[in-house]
């Protein structure tokens, strides 16, 4: 009996056929049938397994299956992603069975990727989020990352509106003051390629490894979490053709309102007369100037977007394939920006021999990203009195006194004339072979490649509009190549011992290396605008180029052990050697362990409404090796000087070497509960974690007297940081039946704190101008906190000025603090307002992030309403340093109409004055705003035509849908949009867009 089980281990069934066919056939009988959903449609890819064995098969795309079973009264388990697993007991002579599966929120049967393998969701011991990708394809977004915003507890996604831009992921807070991006793994290949390279339609699953016990299998790259993306595979059955098309319109959700010409001229007069400067005679009668130019209006537009994808898939027992192609054509909401992408995905798997499985995953993409030549803040600042075009039809220019006219170059002109374009050509793929050595032992070898080629081109023709005329045409090009190779080898042992024990062991190696090369060149002076090639330039030529490399070699192992499905243990270890580590720290070891206890299986557990209850606990160590390729090296840099116009080589020491540099380390503890209650209708997951980053790289203190760079300093592993938080995720089937209503919600609380840096010297992380720092990292505070002065209303009278600490001494209202200026708090009470009166004025890290999705279905109609929000973070609105500064001839926001113009006129918007003697625009809480928001992130309404109707048109299904991304945003933030980037600074940020789309999905 035991021998049979041994032979029937998961990977060996075909092998067994070969070796002992007669034995097997003598024992088995064939069961066949169909699996359908509640509407009678066949469900493809359902796994049908014989209970107590490793014997299983997969249903075809029509839902048909057949399986040879061995037991006399066997139980069959029918499981599929998104459906409630169903168990059917077969009677002695039954040879066919038809099964209806109910859709599920619990989805405990789902398989979750864990890196170098997968486990059933119900057997998880770590904190892993399985992201719902069902609606990914119908969302009008180019980047799959945007599509998963709010879909997983503890995963913050920050998108940008710029076409073709990438998203920023933060998993469980900001793990380090350095690079806090998670590792992304696509089809088993760790990649640094942008997620844009993959069409959202091709994605089958996204799993996020959040805690260290899950991520430790990625060792020195797991510290900021791991995102595992799997592309779609073919399924058994006849070929399946799917066409998806949508068209969309995008618009800026909110445009900041600025002054019109008349208001601007009035303000300019006030600025100058308050500052004792001569006013512009041309602005003597502001009323005559009218509304003038709306520069922002001219820069933004309603932009179309189209997406087409065609996928063809199918397969048999021996072979399956998935082939797809897509085109995305997106125009940006800022004129001349856009994004066009072509992708091809080809995945296949074959079983040429009974003991051999080979396959490949291949993602090809090519994109073109015109990124324009514009600056949103400059468009806000542009003079509204200036027309876009001069009388002769050319772009207008600014000449003359900058105090009257400003000095902002014609933004519409540069946007239309200059071009900046990046083209990318990307290959991401792998081939693998999986060999069954013994029934319970397999070996898999994977060779992966990531080849990224991208080149950028900037062109500026001759133009004459001042203040920055281009007197010679300029062309600059850069070609980049990044090649990454991967070779993974690992053994997997998977065996049940008796009915109670299940052991899985993984052991293997991984080697990955990368080389990045670039070469660039630029020239000036071209004979014509059509000859945009370097050879055509006649001016001075500059060339440059460089290369860098890294390599990683790893050993890894994992043990999963389950006893009676009740007690689950996972232990992993990874040993990473990296070319980036100094010779004394070449290898790092990253262990983890986690356990889970399924209380609901205990005999004493008798809570009727709880179907499944599992408690998890884990601890692990992970690393972050994004520390630069050569931090350890003791090297001399090469550059140049010149004598008599002739260049000569210089060789000089720049960075003090740190031969001891190593990875940053994260120790993370996690406890969690998974519960399924109320007849499998409600699924609840709660996790609490403590994430301690140590060995965090902080800039070394290098006395400048050494002569080594004091700005380009080596980093030393000396900082510590802590994130702690709670994540709650809930899925509920509120109403089932013909009309169904499901709710998924999650909320994640995180607290971030730097616990120590190298010494007490704070690190300034953001600044504008030459020395106006505003972001600070200091022990005892959250990462990247804002730092500056604290305002205390506005001086209404000279007496109030005199009674307060000295801010700017002087003799007149135009060179010193005067009524109408901002009162800054004298925090150290020394009677003087200076740099010592700065303090912490805001935390860009949210207190919690949350999301809720409600889906309603009735017959063929589906409606999903997805809300997503962020709470408690602060934004530094750096645009307003200039756009509410009221000291120079730049246009200002409409709010400046409420400026102080006499006692009692305002207590928050100061007076307008040239030169800003009081430095009202200094970094202060004046520019800190609440960044909390709640968005209606996505609303999708779709209608699936009745089956018969579709079939009469020779389709297996037809779905039409309409969607709106970022439908509405509720926020107090005064800028374009509160989603400004992970550091919380809004400076010329390209706002996210509101997008309406309509689409159709056809299946053949």
């Amino acid at each position, binding site marked *: 009996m035991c021998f049979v089980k041994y032979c029937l281990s998961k990977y060996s069934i075909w092998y067994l056929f070969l070796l002992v066919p007669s034995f097997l056939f003598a024992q088995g009988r064939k069961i066949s049938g169909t699996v359908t959903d509640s509407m009678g449609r066949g469900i493809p890819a359902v796994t049908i397994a014989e209970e107590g064995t490793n014997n299983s098969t997969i249903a075809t795309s029509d839902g048909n299956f057949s399986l040879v079973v061995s037991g006399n009264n066997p139980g069959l388990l029918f499981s599929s992603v998104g459906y409630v697993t169903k168990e059917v007991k077969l009677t002695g002579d039954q040879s066919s069975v038809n099964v209806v599966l109910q859709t599920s929120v619990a989805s405990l049967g789902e398989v979750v990727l864990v890196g170098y393998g997968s486990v059933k969701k119900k057997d998880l011991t770590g904190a892993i989020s399985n992201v719902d990708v069902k609606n990914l394809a119908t969302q009008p977004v180019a980047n799959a990352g945007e599509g998963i915003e709010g879909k997983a507890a503890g995963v913050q996604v920050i998108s940008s509106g710029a076409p073709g831009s990438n998203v920023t992921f933060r998993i469980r807070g900001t793990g380090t003051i350095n690079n806090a991006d998670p590792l992304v793994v696509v089809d088993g290949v760790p990649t640094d390629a942008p997620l844009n390279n993959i069409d959202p339609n091709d994605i089958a699953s996204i799993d996020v490894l959040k805690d260290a016990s899950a991520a430790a299998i990625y060792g020195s790259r797991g510290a900021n979490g791991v995102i595992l993306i799997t592309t779609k595979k073919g399924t058994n059955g006849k070929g399946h053709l799917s066409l998806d098309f949508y068209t969309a319109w995008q618009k800026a959700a909110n445009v900041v309102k600025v002054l019109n010409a008349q208001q601007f001229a009035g303000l300019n007069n006030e600025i100058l007369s308050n500052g004792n*400067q001569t006013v512009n005679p041309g602005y003597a009668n502001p009323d005559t100037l009218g509304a003038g130019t709306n520069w922002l209006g001219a820069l933004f537009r309603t932009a179309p977007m189209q997406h087409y994808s065609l996928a063809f898939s199918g397969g048999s027992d021996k072979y399956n394939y998935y082939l797809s192609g897509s085109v995305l054509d997106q125009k940006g909401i800022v004129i001349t920006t856009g994004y066009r992408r072509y992708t091809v995905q080809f995945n296949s798997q074959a079983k040429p021999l009974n003991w051999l499985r080979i396959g490949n995953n291949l993602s090809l993409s090519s994109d073109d990203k015109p990124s324009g030549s514009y600056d949103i803040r400059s468009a806000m600042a542009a003079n509204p009195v200036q027309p876009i075009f001069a009388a002769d039809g050319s772009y207008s220019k600014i000449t003359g006194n900058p105090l009257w006219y400003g000095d902002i170059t014609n933004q519409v002109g540069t946007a239309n004339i200059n071009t900046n374009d990046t083209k990318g050509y990307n290959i991401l793929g792998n081939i693998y072979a999986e060999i069954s050595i013994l029934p319970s032992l397999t070996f898999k070898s994977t060779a992966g490649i990531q080849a990224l080629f991208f080149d950028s081109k900037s062109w500026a023709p001759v133009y004459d509009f001042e203040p920055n005329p281009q007197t010679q045409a300029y062309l600059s090009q850069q070609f980049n190549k990044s090649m990454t190779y991967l070779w993974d080898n690992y053994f997997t042992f998977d065996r049940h011992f008796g009915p109670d024990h299940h052991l899985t062991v993984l052991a293997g*190696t991984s080697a990955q290396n990368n080389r990045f090369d670039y070469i660039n060149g630029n020239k000036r002076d071209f004979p014509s605008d059509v000859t945009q090639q370097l050879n055509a330039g006649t001016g001075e030529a500059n060339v440059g180029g460089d290369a860098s490399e890294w390599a990683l070699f790893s050993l890894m192992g994992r043990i999963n052990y389950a006893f009676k499905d009740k007690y689950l243990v996972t232990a992993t270890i990874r040993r990473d050697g990296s070319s980036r580590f100094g010779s004394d720290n070449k290898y790092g070891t990253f262990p983890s362990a986690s356990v889970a206890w399924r209380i609901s299986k205990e005999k004493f557990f008798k809570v009727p409404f709880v179907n499944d209850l599992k408690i998890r606990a884990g601890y692990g160590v992970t690393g972050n090796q994004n520390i630069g390729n050569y931090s350890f090296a003791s090297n*001399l840099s*090469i550059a140049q000087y010149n004598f008599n116009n002739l260049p000569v080589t210089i060789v*000089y020491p720049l960075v003090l070497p740190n031969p001891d540099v190593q990875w940053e380390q994260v120790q993370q503890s996690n406890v969690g509960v998974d519960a399924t209650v109320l007849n499998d209708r409600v699924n609840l997951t709660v996790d609490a974690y403590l994430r301690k980053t140590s060995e965090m790289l902080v800039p070394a203190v290098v006395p400048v007297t050494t002569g080594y760079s004091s700005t380009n300093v080596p980093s030393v592993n000396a900082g510590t940081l802590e994130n702690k938080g709670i994540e709650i995720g809930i899925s509920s089937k509120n109403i089932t039946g013909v009309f169904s209503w499901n709710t998924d919600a999650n909320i994640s609380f995180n607290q971030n704190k730097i616990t120590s840096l190298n010494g007490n010297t704070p690190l300034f992380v953001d600044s504008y101008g030459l020395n106006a720092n505003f972001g600070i990292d200091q022990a005892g505070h959250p990462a990247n906190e804002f730092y500056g002065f604290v305002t205390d209303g506005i001086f209404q009278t000279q007496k109030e000025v005199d009674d307060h600490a000295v801010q700017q001494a002087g003799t007149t209202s135009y060179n010193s603090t005067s009524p109408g200026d901002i009162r800054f708090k004298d925090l150290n009470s020394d009677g003087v307002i200076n740099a010592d009166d700065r303090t912490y004025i805001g935390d860009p890290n949210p207190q919690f992030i949350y999301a809720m999705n409600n889906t309603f279905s009735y017959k063929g109609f589906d409606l999903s309403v997805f809300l997503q929000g962020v709470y408690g973070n602060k934004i530094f609105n750096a645009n307003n340093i200039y756009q509410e500064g009221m000291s120079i001839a730049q246009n200002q926001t409409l709010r400046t109409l409420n400026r102080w113009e006499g006692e009692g006129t305002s207590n928050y918007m100061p007076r307008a004055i040239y030169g800003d003697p009081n430095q009202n*625009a200094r970094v202060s809480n004046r520019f800190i705003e609440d960044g909390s928001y709640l968005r209606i992130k996505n609303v999708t309404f779709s209608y699936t035509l009745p089956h018969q109707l579709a079939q009469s048109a020779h389709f297996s299904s037809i779905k039409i849908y309409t969607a709106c991304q970022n439908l509405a945003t509720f926020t107090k933030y005064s800028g374009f949009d509160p989603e400004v980037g992970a550091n919380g600074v809004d400076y010329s940020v390209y706002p996210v867009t509101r997008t309406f789309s309509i689409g159709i999905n056809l299946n053949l």
Partner: protein
Amino acid sequence: MKPTRYIQLSLLVVFILSITSCRKYLDKVPLDSINTSNFFKTPDDAINAINAAYQPMQRPKLYNLRMWTSDIMAGNSVVGAGGGTDGIETVEEANFTTDPGNPGVLDLWRGPWPGILSCNLVLQNVPGIKMDEALRNRILGEAKFLRANYYFILVRYFGDVPLITTPQSPKDTNYYPSRVDKKLVYNLIIQDLKDAIDLLPRRETYTGSDVGRASKGSAVGLLAKVYLTLGQYADVIPLCQQVTQLGYTLDANYSDNFDPAHKNGPESLFEVQYSGQTNYGFFDDLNQASWTSTFMGPRNTTFVGGAYGWNQPTQEFVDSYEPGDKRKDQTILYQGGPDFYGNVYSSTYSTTGYNVRKFLVPTSKSPQYNTSNEDFPVLRYADVLLMEAEALNATGKTAEAQLPSTDPNATLNKVRARAGLPDVTGLSQADLKEKILHERRMELAFEGDRWFDLVRVDNGQYGLNFLHSIGKTNATAKNLLLPIPQVEIDANPNLKQNPGY
């Protein structure tokens, strides 16, 4: 029948291979730089290392920005710039509200040390290289000259400074050095320059891409300036005369000193070289283009590429020109003055009504903001003549200091004659002193020298009197030295702040 045996065997081989074949796999070294242990082996290494000792002078921390903005602090001009916070740190300096967080001061403090390190590396390693003795001497001489010049910059702005004469590593006891008495710093400067005078060749021996290197004349002239700064006037005179004997003369045309087409001319003892190449970023430390024209061009005009509008001369400065001074038209842009390559100036281009013309390079010669190849003068013969006159007068040879311009030994009047001004004769020692300092102000305007004159004469009392006379009443004795930047004190607690900050 048993393929698995072979497979298992081959898998084992594959697996073992994949584990063991990684010995060299993790050895990755930078591909674009030289390992320290392979360097200082050849004469070329020595040349490349001494070239590196020049480069820090090019940076905005020193001659490309911060040193000429000292003239703003000295009252010759105001910042101008674009308003808002543009140049706010220089406004603070000019208002004498400078605090230890001032980024301009930080630049001046940080600027020289990379150069000093390169000099120290050369002085430590080049003696051990097998190479031509004449070349070795030249290189060592250049290192001594450059190190002296870097310390001379530091000691004049900050007073006492740390004295580092060998390359350092974190294990050194002096890794966090204290400031030492400036007398010791001057001792090193003087010894370095004396050595450099012996080691360096005359400038005419340089050809091709060596023209512009430190020469014997550079070292002699700089030593004269060091003695002048220390008030050792008797030592100044013979050195100035030695410069004359080395063949230096005044350019016939004053503005040729600031014309990229006449760089390293007959008047030039030493200048910071800019080629105007654009292969490094304009704001990068390694930038090869000069900032002066770009920064000083009238804002919102097409006089020059860029035109940031910095450094606007004050009315008081413009009024200080003697009638007939030809340098006025060559130094200042003013309404009604001569046009600049066809561009007509209007007083609305500037907050003071004036802009600097001296350093402007027209777009026909430098089309873009980042293409100017104008050198920055560190020491020129007119300065040497004025130093000689000042030293003669200070040592009682007041008449000798006023020799008519036709006299071969004339000093002050030679400089005045070129400016189209009549000879000075018969002034008293006190009046002549004042006259010479005034002449230095006009002759060397915007070259970053005025501040050093203000703080050196009469131990700075001359400067304070002058600053108060033009309304800068905030200036007190503490302002004669700049504060030590707070971030540097934080990084090295052994540094103590200058009094009053």
